[in-house]
């Protein structure tokens, strides 16, 4: 009887273990399949085509070129490898300036014909029109519409997912924004966190420690939106004033808020690691004539280095994945940051802000999932590298002798 019960308990435990792993794997698979659907999309918006005059030798344009053409930053075909003719941009709504309503027909049923005429008449034209208006004997030529390419996404310098006719899905500004904010956050948090950890574990009296530790742990429980609020009300205006900026919502504000949020993790984990340093080890050092500080940095810190690293990494993990607080204080401009005193936008903030307005299954939606994949890979790389580092430094220097 007893054994049957044990078997049942064992079975339940095994099941729950399996179910958890399977769930995680499914989530990852879901993330990846949704994300890589992006590369099945065409560069131009779905259901639309780009048409040029039949004599125009240009066969295709990249997404960036299309955007620049329609933003009128490129105004001559010679800039994209064509003849020296000025580019004339034509959108469907422009058709009324060429034809009267009667000519177009009541239900736009003659629009196809009219578009064909316009395209044939203007050698420099580029027309962005619904595919359904393109008739069989269309006199112009359609530009080849490529799938969105890997390099356009991962090396693209512009994130403009709602641009027409060609949305821009360049990840570079978002990835850079994330890395910048996290990097500066860790830059601020590391020295502070480590000094507080050393103070608490080595210097502070047990009474001070008994007071400080719960306070710092309390910081961990504050919802991130509250940190964001604090950042918006206190840090943002302060930065604006101190650096004399037009806006205070900058990467720096995000870094500071993130640093504050990462502090409790760094402090508690590395403090615990240092306190785990055996008394015998400290006594051995002191007995050799080392001072208190020599003992701290030559024995206690090396001994607890793997614990300290994991604290730091947990802190970085929190910084990279943090959404709400960053969304509130960084200004969210998707541009490649050149200084930390500019508005920038991080990956999680982008996903949070845009997923609601991206139509499910569309290119924008899939691009956001791909951002999620990138974020996932970044954190995974960090975790693996840390495990590697701590396994290297920890080799033979394990806790137990």
């Amino acid at each position, binding site marked *: 009887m007893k054994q049957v019960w044990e078997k049942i308990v064992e079975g339940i435990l095994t099941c729950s273990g399996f179910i958890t792993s399977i769930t995680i794997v499914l989530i990852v698979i879901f993330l990846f399949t949704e994300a890589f659907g992006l590369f099945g999309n065409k560069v131009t918006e779905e259901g639309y085509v780009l048409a040029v005059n039949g004599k125009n030798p240009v066969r295709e344009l990249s997404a960036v070129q299309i955007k620049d053409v329609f933003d009128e930053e490129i105004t001559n075909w010679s800039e994209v490898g064509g003849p020296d003719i000025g580019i004339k941009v034509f959108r469907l709504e422009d058709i009324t300036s060429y034809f009267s309503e009667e000519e177009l027909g009541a239900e736009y049923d003659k629009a196809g014909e009219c578009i064909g005429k316009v395209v044939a008449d203007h050698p420099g034209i580029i027309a962005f029109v619904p595919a359904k208006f393109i008739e069989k004997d269309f006199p112009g030529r359609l530009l080849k519409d490529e799938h969105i390419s890997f390099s356009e996404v991962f090396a693209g310098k512009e994130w403009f997912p709602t641009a027409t006719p060609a949305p821009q899905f360049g990840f570079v500004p978002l990835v850079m924004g994330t890395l910048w904010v996290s990097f500066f956050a860790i830059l601020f948090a590391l020295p502070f966190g480590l000094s507080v950890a050393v103070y608490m574990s080595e210097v502070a009296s047990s009474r001070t420690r008994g007071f400080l530790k719960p306070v710092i742990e309390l910081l961990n429980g504050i919802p991130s939106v509250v940190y964001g609020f604090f950042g918006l009300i206190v840090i943002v205006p302060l930065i604006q004033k101190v650096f004399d900026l037009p806006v205070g919502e900058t990467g720096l504000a995000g870094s500071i808020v993130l640093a504050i949020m990462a502090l409790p993790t760094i402090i508690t984990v590395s403090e615990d690691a240092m306190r785990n340093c*055996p008394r*015998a*080890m400290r*006594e*051995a*050092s*002191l*007995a*050799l*004539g*080392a*001072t208190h500080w*020599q003992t701290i940095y*030559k*024995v206690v810190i*090396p*001994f607890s280095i793997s614990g300290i690293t994991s604290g730091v990494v947990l802190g970085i993990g929190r910084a990279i994945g943090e959404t709400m607080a960053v969304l509130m204080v960084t200004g969210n401009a998707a541009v490649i940051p050149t200084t930390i005193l500019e508005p920038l936008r991080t990956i999680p903030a982008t996903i949070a802000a845009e997923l609601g307005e991206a139509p499910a299954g569309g290119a924008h939606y899939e691009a956001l999932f791909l951002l999620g994949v990138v974020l996932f890979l970044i954190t995974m790389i960090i975790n693996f590298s840390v495990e590697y580092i701590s396994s290297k430094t920890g*080799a*033979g*220097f*394990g806790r137990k*002798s």
Partner: protein
Amino acid sequence: MNKIDAQHVNFFYGDFQALKDISMAIEEKAVVAFIGPSGCGKSTFLRLFNRMNDLIPGARLEGKIQIDGVNIYDKSVQVDELRKNVGMVFQRPNPFPKSIFENVAYGLRVNGVKDNEFIRHRVEETLKGAALWDEVKNKLKESAFALSGGQQQRLCIARAMAVSPSVLLMDEPASALDPISTAKVEELIHELKKEYTIVIVTHNMQQAARVSDKTAFFYMGSMVEYDDTKKIFTNPSKEATQNYITGRFG
């Protein structure tokens, strides 16, 4: 002049009196063993000689302890300088999470020795002195944790010797070791007494009889008897000592 001279030492952990009016003189280059049942204060007394008890909050000392004629609890005494002169080996081997070489070099480095040639020379010398050199000379760069318990303890002895102390305190140095490693450590103590004044705390009475010149018997925070080892083990003057060494209690 005696190497160590303790006069009327009383020691308290908060309200608890751990040591009661102990006076003892230890000669230079002698080996003195402290024996007694657990909790009798022998380790506490030993740890007074390098002020290790300073680390314990609420600890308080009355009386005087002189080493080389200097009161080590005087305000002018630098604790780290004192500890350089009075080395200590602990009950459990406690090497640092560093290489074998760096473990021995540690004391020199924290005391400001920069000359790498000297450090290398000194490490070799002390590892030879601790009878460990032949076993580790090819793996000095490896972690000290890779050594066996007995080797680790001899490494700790080498580490203590590296800063050239004149006194070595040993707090049950062989209690965590197997008999063969214990024999090696005892052999080492015989060698070391040519150069060092050694105070050793031990639970093992045969060990005390084997290695020491003089033995002190502690009981309940008092020093019951302190005399030549031979006399203590053959003809003790106090009945309590007699009972303890014959195994009637403790």
